C-alpha cells in the first residue's frame, strides 16, 4: 500500500467514525461508537503495517519512544488530577461516600427546593466530564506531536548536507 493510500484510508475511517458517532447519539447506543472506534483504530494499525515505503529504524523508534514517554510524564498527572476531581464530585453526592444532609425542618422552602431539584449528580456533569476528557486527549495528541517534532529536530530528521538534492 502506498503512503498516500494509507492517508486516504485514514481520512475515510475518520469520517466514518464521525458519522457513527452521530448515529450513536441519535439512537442512544454508546456501545456502537465504542466498538466502531476500536475497530477503526485496529484497521489503521493494520493498514500502517502494510505501507510499503515506510522505513523504521532504531533512531525513528527512539524518537517515538522519547516523545511518548515525555507525553505520558505530563498527562498521567493531568488525567489523575481530573479523575480525582471527578471522584470527589461524585462521592460528595448521595449514593456516594457521604450520606445526604438531613432536611432543615424550620424552613419549608428548602424542602420544596429539595423535592423539585434533588441533590443528585446531574446528568450533564457526565457530559461535561466526557467532553473535558476528549479535549484533554486532543491536547495530549498535540503535545505528543510537539515532542515528536522536538526530538526529530534534535536527532537530525530534517538536516541536510551536500548529498541532498
Amino acid at each position, binding site marked *: 500500500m502506498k503512503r498516500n493510500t494509507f492517508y486516504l484510508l485514514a481520512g475515510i475511517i475518520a469520517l466514518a467514525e464521525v458519522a457513527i458517532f452521530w448515529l450513536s447519539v441519535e439512537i442512544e447506543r454508546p456501545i456502537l461508537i465504542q466498538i466502531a472506534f476500536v475497530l477503526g483504530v485496529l484497521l489503521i494499525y493494520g493498514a500502517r503495517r502494510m505501507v510499503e515505503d515506510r*522505513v523504521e*529504524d*532504531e*533512531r*525513528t523508534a527512539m524518537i517515538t519512544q522519547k516523545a511518548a514517554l515525555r507525553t505520558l510524564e505530563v498527562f498521567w498527572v493531568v488525567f489523575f488530577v481530573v479523575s480525582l476531581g471527578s471522584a470527589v464530585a461524585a462521592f460528595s453526592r448521595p449514593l456516594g461516600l457521604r450520606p445526604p444532609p438531613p432536611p432543615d425542618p424550620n424552613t419549608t422552602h428548602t424542602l420544596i427546593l429539595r423535592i423539585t431539584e434533588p441533590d443528585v449528580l446531574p446528568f450533564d456533569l457526565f457530559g461535561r466530564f466526557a467532553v473535558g476528557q476528549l479535549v484533554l486527549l486532543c491536547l495530549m495528541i498535540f503535545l505528543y506531536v510537539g515532542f515528536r517534532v522536538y526530538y526529530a529536530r*534534535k*536527532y*537530525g*530528521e530534517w*538536516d541536510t*548536507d551536500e*548529498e541532498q538534492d
Partner: protein
Amino acid sequence: MKNRIKVYRAMHDLTQEGLANELGVTRQTILAIEKGKYDPSLDLAFKIARFFGVTIEDIFLYGDTAERK
C-alpha cells in the same frame, strides 16, 4: 562521540543512501550519525564496522580518544 563514517564511505565510494540501504536504516540516520547528532546502538555500530571490514574503534572515536587522534 566522533566517527569516521564519511571517510570510510568515501573510500568505498558509497552514498549515504547506499550505506543506509545496505544497513537497513534510513538515510537520515546515517546523516545524523555522521553529524554527531545521534549515537548508534552497539548493534548498528557493529554492523557499520563489519560492513567496512574494520573494528568499531577504527570508525567510532570515544571521548579523549577522539581528541588524541
